[in-house]
């Protein structure tokens, strides 16, 4: 009896083992048959979950860069792409980072996209000496925490927060504001600087953090009751959409100002007509003439490949991937060498701006633009410094 039972178990196990070896064999064979070495550039960001659209926009940018570099044909190696989904959640980010670190083919990472996820992943990346070029993690202190693997091409939130507040104070001429954040690393970080600057600019405000939920009617009632003329929201678009709807239902008549985390067409899809008039800051989205090279070509290529316009930070992700490729072209092909070369990047002609990283890893221009939702589309109003003169 026991022998029969063992046989019954052994047969499927043996079949399974055979199948696995077949799998392993084919992929190994494919890799060694090409004459060029292959390296993988990875992307980490939210690819599922509420804010997935923000992550997907950047994922596409990286894919576009890698495909373009491969098809141009002047690389001494082939590039592959792999992405890792951290759902934008600092709790899931370490696992997503691990997945990339453990993949020995990965030589550099674009991302992580969200600030909270970045703070959670960087200790691991720094330990592995795997460089992560973030197109969008704007939380101010990320470059001050001693991460040797972190650089970003986008301006940090000390500046975005201050400019947002300046706009509220000087362009919207607000007398009393209500500042709300989603208590995330990004939202809370940004509103800290907004509040600091609002105080300096002499605007009184009330503030509170919210726990992301669906029903914001109580908060909307509070905001209306406080007679604030401007609501500033630091956070991502799913909550902004619901909050905008709740404010409209509660009879709020003032302005709504939010940030780059809310700047996505999904905001308009989810908030409908109530999205009209929302102001959105971003270090991105300025006119192509602002130092960028090849922006029109990028826009056209993105549109033809992904059948939609580039999203927030797609161009920054594209630039991040390209500057990694440039460092690799110059001879760096292992993680440590690439990390060093990337951090020394200077005057790299990206489509968004000429990128140079300073000693802390900051590569942004310091320029913040203001956008506004008009007639169901996000339109650029201009550079905030120009608008508040």
């Amino acid at each position, binding site marked *: 009896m026991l022998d029969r039972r063992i046989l019954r178990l052994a047969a499927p196990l043996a079949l399974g083992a055979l199948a696995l070896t077949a799998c392993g064999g084919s992929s190994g064979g494919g890799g060694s048959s090409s004459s060029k070495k292959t390296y993988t550039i990875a992307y980490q960001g939210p690819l599922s979950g509420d804010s997935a*659209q923000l992550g997907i926009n950047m994922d596409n940018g990286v894919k576009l860069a890698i495909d373009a570099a491969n098809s141009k044909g002047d690389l001494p190696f082939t590039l592959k792409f792999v992405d890792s989904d951290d759902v934008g959640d600092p709790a899931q980010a370490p696992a997503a980072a691990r997945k990339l670190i453990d993949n020995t083919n990965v030589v550099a990472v674009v991302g992580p996209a969200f600030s909270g996820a970045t703070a959670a992943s960087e200790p691991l990346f720094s330990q592995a000496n795997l460089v992560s070029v973030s197109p969008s993690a704007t939380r101010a202190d990320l470059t001050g925490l001693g991460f040797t693997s972190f650089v970003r091409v986008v301006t940090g939130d000390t500046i975005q927060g201050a400019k947002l507040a300046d706009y509220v104070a000087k362009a919207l001429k607000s007398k009393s504001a209500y500042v709300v954040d989603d208590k995330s690393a990004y939202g809370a970080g940004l509103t800290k600087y907004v509040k600091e600057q609002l105080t300096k600019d002499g605007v009184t405000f009330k503030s509170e953090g919210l*726990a992301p*939920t669906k029903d914001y*009617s109580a908060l909307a009632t*509070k905001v209306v*009751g406080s007679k604030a003329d401007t609501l500033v929201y630091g956070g991502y678009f799913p909550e902004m959409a619901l909050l905008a709807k709740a404010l409209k*239902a*509660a009879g709020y008549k003032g302005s709504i100002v939010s940030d780059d985390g809310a700047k996505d067409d999904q905001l308009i899809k*989810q908030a409908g007509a109530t999205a009209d008039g929302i102001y959105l800051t971003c270090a991105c989205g300025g006119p192509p003439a602002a130092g960028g090279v090849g922006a029109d070509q990028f826009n056209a290529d993105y549109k033809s490949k992904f059948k939609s316009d580039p999203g927030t930070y797609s161009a920054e992700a594209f630039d991040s991937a390209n500057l990694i490729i440039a460092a690799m072209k110059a001879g760096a092909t292992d993680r440590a060498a690439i990390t060093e070369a990337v951090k020394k990047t200077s005057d790299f002609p990206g489509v968004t701006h000429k990128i140079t990283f300073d000693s802390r890893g900051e590569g942004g221009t310091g320029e913040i633009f203001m956008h506004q939702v008009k007639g169901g589309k996000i339109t650029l109003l201009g550079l905030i410094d120009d608008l508040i003169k």
Partner: protein
Amino acid sequence: MCFTQSFWQLTISGLALGSVYALIALGYTLVYGVLQLINFAHSEVFMLGGFGGLFLIRGLGISNPSGFTSVALVIGGMLAGAVFGGVTAFVLERVAYRPLRRRGAPKLAFLISAIGASYFLLNLAGKEFGRFNNPMPSLYTSGEVFSVFGAQVTTNNLVIGSAAVVMLIALDRIIAKTRLGMGIRSVAQDAEAASLMGVDINKVITRTFIIGGLLAGVAGFLFGIQFGVQYNMGFSAGTKAFTAAVLGGIGNVRGAVLGGLVLGVAENLGVACVSSAWRDVIAFMILVLVLMVRPTGLLGERLGRSA
């Protein structure tokens, strides 16, 4: 004081949200009364009901409806939501619970099956329907209809509130007056004795699930009108509704309703008085305090012994 300013406004919106919680809580309480099982997958019944209503409204594709068309659309959406909810609940009962009942499995197995079904349905919906929030196409122009003590009552509040009231009264009558209701109460009181008395246990259990599913499905659609439909909307609404059911007395139908309304209002007042971030903390603190003073919940008695 923090809430004297907008007390009525907060109460009105709290009651609207609370009635959605109440509808969902009824599903939890009925199934618990009859099976002593916490049906964790009930939150996904709510979510799928919401999607059912959404698909119908999207499919009909009527833009800017008003007047009679609006009423028809709302009722149609509620029916679609109810159907989707009922079918999901029926399938759940057959697939996730009945096989365990037939084998006399321990209670833990039911619990694990419930949680597993919940995760499965949630992720399946996320994969099939996308993970974004899907706002409901507008069914009517929402605005203030009238005001009570200075608080405005909007069309949304009225639709959700009145639909919920109608369903709750209907359920109460079913439980109290019909044979099915008597069957449910008898199985809740003592399943063995009920079967000895000639009650078909399996039929009663199936119908209990279906009733709970119908209510949750409608709740999903009503919730979706105001907040949109999303694959994970069941999780937090379901947790709150379960809390409401326990708050009112698990197994007690009227308790579930009372619990839902109390929770909805308490959450809103809590947000106003403290801060939005404390919303869930306050809701659960109320639950803990009530249970400490009255462990069987506000209305206490079990389904078998209540009206």
